[in-house]
């Protein structure tokens, strides 16, 4: 059985890499920290034109009709770029949730606008206390009890909360739900969306960890100490090799989770939890070791590394911490 990605999926990944290198370099992420909303509607528009945003939107609603496996490498690239935009919430979670659980009217109303880049979606699942990007979202998909609601902009209020990542703002929300916001699906679809969130966050984290590692490897080839590059010292090599090992294996877990979600396999929830645990723990290693290898400069404001370190810390707890997912896994596997 061939588990490799297709030539086309790699071509999309390469295109995403070029796009983010040009449109969301570290200087852009830094600028978003300082901006009022932390978001760039211009970049979101370009992402929609290129095809990122509507990737999972069915073709009849103006999208590309692709799935989780096509998306996973793009999420890695978005993670590597510490992309500020809510690609995960909109394209990886929101759109599939609308497709699986939305009424026909909700789908007709929202999916074409999302694909065109005219509507941003965010989600609140599993009683998560904070909602990312609620201040710019046009649609909030909300899980309350056994019900799912699609709440438009004018029916919810967002209150800013402290976030350690200035380019990913967090909010508490108060939503006015009713029969008119109710979606067709319920708890089962909400659980699937949570799995997509966990697996998608894992892909973001893996890209982020890889980027921190790449930046650090480049730094150790450049930085001299005792008359030679610090990367030539065995203790430094070991740290980087250990990091590579955990990041590589974590990627495989996220790829399998994407496949399990795309095909609706019976083990998709387990796969998503394993992916999130692996990616979180790999990121913790990457975060610690790349900062350590950089030395003092790694936590200066002027160095770009902290942009990734803080995104990593922020994503560790989104869509479930490693501990939560371990508990979920234990429940599913041993009950």
């Amino acid at each position: 059985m061939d588990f490799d990605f297709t030539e086309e999926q790699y071509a999309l990944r390469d295109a995403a890499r070029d796009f983010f290198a040009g449109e969301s370099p570290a200087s852009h992420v830094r600028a978003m920290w300082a901006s009022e909303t932390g978001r760039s509607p211009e970049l979101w528009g370009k992402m929609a034109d290129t095809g990122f945003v509507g990737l999972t939107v069915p073709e009849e609603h103006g999208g590309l009709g692709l799935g989780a496996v096509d998306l996973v490498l793009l999420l890695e690239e978005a993670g590597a770029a510490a992309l500020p935009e809510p690609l995960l919430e909109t394209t990886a979670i929101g759109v599939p949730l609308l497709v699986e659980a939305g009424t026909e009217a909700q789908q007709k109303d929202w999916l074409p606008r999302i694909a065109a880049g005219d509507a941003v979606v965010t989600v609140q699942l599993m009683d998560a206390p904070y909602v990312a990007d609620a201040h710019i979202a046009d649609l909030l998909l909300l899980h309350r009890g056994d019900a799912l609601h699609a709440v438009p902009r004018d029916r919810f209020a967002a209150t800013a909360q402290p976030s350690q990542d200035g380019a990913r703002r967090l909010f508490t929300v108060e939503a006015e739900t009713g029969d008119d916001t109710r979606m067709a699906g319920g708890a089962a679809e909400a659980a699937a969306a949570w799995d997509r969130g966990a697996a998608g966050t894992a892909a973001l984290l893996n890209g982020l960890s890889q980027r921190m590692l790449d930046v650090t490897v480049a730094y150790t080839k450049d930085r001299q100490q005792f008359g030679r590059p610090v990367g030539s010292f065995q203790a430094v090599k070991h740290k980087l090799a250990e990091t590579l090992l955990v990041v590589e294996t974590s990627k495989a877990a996220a790829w399998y989770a994407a496949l399990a979600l795309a095909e609706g396999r019976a083990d998709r929830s387990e796969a998503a939890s394993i992916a999130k645990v692996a990616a979180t723990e790999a990121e913790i290693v990457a975060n610690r070791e790349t900062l350590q290898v950089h030395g003092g400069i790694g936590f200066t404001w002027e160095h770009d590394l902290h942009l990734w370190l803080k995104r990593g810390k922020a994503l560790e707890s989104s869509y479930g911490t490693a501990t939560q997912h371990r508990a979920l896994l234990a429940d599913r596997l041993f009950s």
Partner: protein
Amino acid sequence: MRIICPVKRVPDTAAKKAVEPDLTLDRDGVEAVLNANDEWSIEEALRIKERTPGTEVVVLCVGPEQAQQTIRKALSYGLDGAIQVSDPGISGSDASGIASIVAGALADEEFDLVIMGNQSSDARTMLLPAMLAEYLDLPALTYCTKLDIDGDTVRAEREMPGGHQVVEAKLPAVVSVVEAINEPRYPSFKGIMAAKSKPVVVKDLQDVGLDAEMVGLEHAWTQVLEVTPRPPRQAGDKVEDDGSGTVGAKALADFLVARKFL
């Protein structure tokens, strides 16, 4: 309107390049990419296509089988089709040889405009556009920073030292463009997915009316005699300031005066 965009497969600009024993570039050892300057010509062709309904843009690439990758990349920008000229006898051809091959490939094609980058990032001869125009017996408008098509006339602004020249020609014509002409778009995902289903016509030397006696390394009009790596950068002069800034400032001023900046 039908536009031809000749493109070249080149070694990644950032990669360290090596030469083979016959002094041709080692093309297998490094990652190959679409020549960056050709992204400007593709973008310009697409803009004309968007302004002029019914326009067809065809990419043309001379290169071995692996050049299909470069062709797919070019097609992913939204081009309509491709012509590839591939033949073992082409290897090592110089600018004149390649120009004759491109001209041969276009002999049976209907087209109004050939738009190409002004140079390739590997050879950097800048000769091909003018040579191609000569072989095709068409006007050549080179180093263009602006293009306007009006009926059967192309009007262009050419980059010149100290200004620009406005030139025009009747179609068909050969145009080469420089970086200032536009900002190339990113290929869309739709374009990438559609690229594999676009038609690619593959021709060999015989199809383009040439034979192996006319092109290739052995029959090139120019010969590479020697390849010398660029000398390493020399260390600059270091000025020790006494802390007051006056020594450094004077040294800097002297440096600028000596080079006539001040």
